[in-house]
């Protein structure tokens, strides 16, 4: 891009050159009005940002076994690392719409089966090579490969073929999917040179920061990429991610000014932390939720009256107040909330109703033997306490629950998705289709409620191919009703993302796509 014009855009943003004069100069230099307007907008939003400094993030979820291979990322620190060096084709913005990153536009055929991603030109990887459509295709190929053990493998399964045509990367699906851009915004799918086949863990991408030091389980240091294409992002000189798994130590690091941002503030201490000087606690509703799940194909849970009794016997508001300390919202027994696009907020909220629960319990004809609920501390924060609250509220409805406490070790392999009634959590997905396809389609690997409803499956597939948003919303609403009234999911609460910030951090926005603004905090924020 023309340096003179960049300089002028900066001057115009500061008000030293009039907007009209800037546009005139741009036209004289042969730049289209639309493009000049974009430049001006980006210069203005960057104007507020102060450049420079080292932004320090204290994060839970890092181990000395971590790698920088995007395919293998599964916990928080690798997630944040990917957002420093990587760039995806598209991203999901805070308002739920698609933002264009390495792809500058996306189009689909009317049947939503073939999708074309036009690559942004002139973008470079950290190794100086240009980002091409070929790189995008190779990246997707690697994540489709069983050997890569990619966390995005499930997304890739729906792809039938891929091809490159000049600067256009196109994907053809085996079944239509109107949400494909959302799926390719997955954080594992950072575009790497040649798809990362040569050295997947090299930490080379097209993102705002370049690898400076990589010490898994301790710290990761990232330096500003001088050739980064997007002027509106990447304001600081360095980002340092410190692995602080201990919650108290993490909060102390924020309070002592050693780090500027921390993730996973424990709701129990959030208010105390917010009161200390120079620190604020920010929370935003996200798609993550805590659940109790019943197998719909196993007695006694095969009986929908009993499932209904158990759903009515839980006090959702009490859980939000006591388990989340108010940092969350009540659930409604289907896995979707307002964090998702096309959410129907007119579905009536299910309330705690011991009388109705007792009635359904009687109707189910259960023999009165205690119903075993398996739970472990690691199922979700406060899971054991939540189970105890549930036991008491159910007892008020005459339903005996027996809590069986399981060890954390092996909970996800021996209890979850194995035992018929247990506690669990979901981190949520960017779109409804993906959430339902992951866990509630009858053929899903992780169908942890053993939910098998042919009509529901049909609706899910038809919504996927539906490009008309109004119709899709209607279908999703119907699915939510089925899930809520017949499913094996008891969803008492959606947990907020709760992060802690130093008052030196500026530019923070509410963004429920993930913790730390969907991982984008270090790109969007700056240090005062």
């Amino acid at each position, binding site marked *: 891009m023309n340096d003179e014009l960049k300089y002028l855009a900066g001057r115009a943003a500061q008000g030293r050159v009039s907007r009209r004069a800037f546009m005139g100069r741009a036209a004289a230099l042969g730049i289209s009005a639309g493009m000049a307007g974009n430049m001006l907008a980006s210069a203005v939003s960057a104007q507020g940002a102060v450049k420079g400094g080292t932004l320090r993030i204290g994060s839970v979820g890092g*181990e000395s076994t971590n790698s920088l291979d995007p395919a293998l990322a599964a916990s928080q620190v690798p997630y944040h690392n990917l957002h420093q060096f990587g760039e995806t084709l598209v991203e999901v913005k805070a308002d739920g719409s698609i933002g264009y990153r390495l792809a500058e536009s996306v189009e689909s055929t009317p049947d939503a089966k073939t999708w074309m991603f036009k690559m942004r030109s002139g973008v470079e990887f950290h190794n100086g090579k240009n980002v091409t459509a070929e790189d995008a295709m190779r990246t997707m190929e690697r994540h489709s490969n069983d050997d890569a053990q990619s966390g995005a493998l499930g997304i890739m399964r729906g792809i039938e073929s891929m091809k490159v045509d000049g600067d256009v990367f196109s994907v053809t699906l085996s079944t239509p999917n109107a949400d494909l851009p959302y799926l390719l915004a997955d954080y594992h799918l950072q575009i790497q040179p040649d798809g990362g086949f040569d050295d997947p863990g090299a930490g080379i991408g097209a993102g705002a920061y370049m690898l400076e030091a990589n010490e898994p*389980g301790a710290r990761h240091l990232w330096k500003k990429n001088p050739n980064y294409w997007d002027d509106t992002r990447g304001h600081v000189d360095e980002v340092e991610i410190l692995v602080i*798994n201990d919650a108290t130590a993490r909060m102390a*690091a924020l309070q002592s000014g050693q780090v500027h941002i921390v993730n996973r503030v424990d709701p129990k201490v959030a208010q105390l932390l917010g009161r200390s000087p120079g620190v604020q606690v920010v929370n935003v509703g996200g798609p993550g939720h805590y659940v109790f799940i019943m197998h719909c194909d196993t007695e006694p849970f095969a009986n929908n009256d009993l499932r209904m009794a158990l759903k009515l016997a839980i006090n959702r508001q009490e859980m939000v107040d006591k388990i989340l300390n108010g940092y969350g919202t009540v659930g409604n027994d289907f896995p979707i909330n307002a964090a998702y696009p096309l959410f129907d907020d007119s579905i009536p909220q299910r309330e705690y109703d011991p009388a109705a629960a007792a009635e359904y319990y009687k109707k189910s004809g259960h023999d009165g033997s205690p119903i075993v609920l398996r739970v472990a501390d690691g199922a979700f924060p406060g899971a054991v306490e939540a189970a105890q609250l549930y036991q008491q509220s159910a007892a008020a409805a005459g339903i005996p629950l027996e809590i069986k406490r399981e060890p954390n070790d092996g909970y996800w392999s021996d209890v979850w998705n194995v035992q018929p009634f247990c506690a669990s959590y979901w981190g949520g997905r960017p779109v409804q289709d993906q959430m339902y396809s992951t866990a509630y389609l009858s053929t899903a690997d992780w169908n942890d409620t053993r939910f098998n409803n042919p009509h529901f499956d049909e609706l899910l597939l038809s919504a996927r191919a539906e490009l008309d948003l109004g119709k899709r919303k209607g279908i999703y609403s119907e699915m939510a009703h089925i899930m809520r009234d017949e499913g094996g999911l008891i969803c008492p609460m959606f947990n907020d993302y709760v992060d802690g910030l130093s008052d030196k951090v500026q530019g923070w926005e509410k963004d429920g796509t993930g913790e730390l603004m969907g991982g984008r905090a270090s790109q969007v924020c700056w240090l005062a």
Partner: protein
Amino acid sequence: MHPIVKLLSQRIALGLLLILATSALIFAGTQILPGDVAQSILGQSATPEALANLREELGLNEPALSRYVDWLLGALQGDLGTALTNGKDIASSMAGRLGNTLFLAFWAAIIAVPLALILGLVAARYAGRWPDKLISGVTLATISLPEFVVGYIVMYILAVNYRLFPSTSVIYDSMTLWEKLNAIALPVIVLVLVVLAHMMRMTRAAILNVMQSPYVETAELKGLRPATIISRHAFPNAIAPVVNVVMLNLAYLVVGVVVVEVVFVYPGIGQYLVDHVSKRDVPVVQACGLVFAAVYIGLNILADVVAILTNPRLRHPK
């Protein structure tokens, strides 16, 4: 052969035998863990063929005894194998972590050992009077609190309130020595507080024990000052039990600091071990176990050697 050389070589040979026996125990222990290694690497999605291939690759089909011998011979040559989780060479990745742990232990010991001895001598000198009671009370209080509590208290006061030292102790190669020392100040303080009481109490008890012997009485009757009696006559005779306790605490500084490392985010070997235990990375667990055992036994041999050399009765056995 001089009897003391014989005694020492016996003691060292016994130590080596002990390490050998520990290695067998470690190996056996990791073998009887539930689930096999191949299963835990491949996880739920394992197919029978993949399991069989991996077992073959890892040599799990060999008899346990021959695997043990292979492992032991490798370890003797410094080859501890590769980590299952990230395929890195264990010896080289462990070396850096062990170096960090030794660095922390070294500075904690440099402060704690002389301090404990001096406090113990002072407490013995004023036995039963207020300096004794003060020293004993404070050190017993700090040893009675769990390490993480001491860690949080120190962190709250020195890092959050007064901002004297950083609350996290991440160190890396490009730091200067001064920066590193500043970074590890808090964990060093915690470790000193935790190990102080044990060594101090033993010094005090050993000295007081010696103080009741006839030769100390003689020294007193000669009119020597109490401080001189302690430093010239009592302390040399109290070295053996003190050295034993000092070595136990040094060993603790190396192998027992997992909690402190986690609280202060210190990249030491304890954290490394915990990370790999949770991933069922058996070769790393075995290697760490072996190193920990070697450190522990090595320091205890050293304690015995010092005790033998300083004890005339052992030096000249009848």
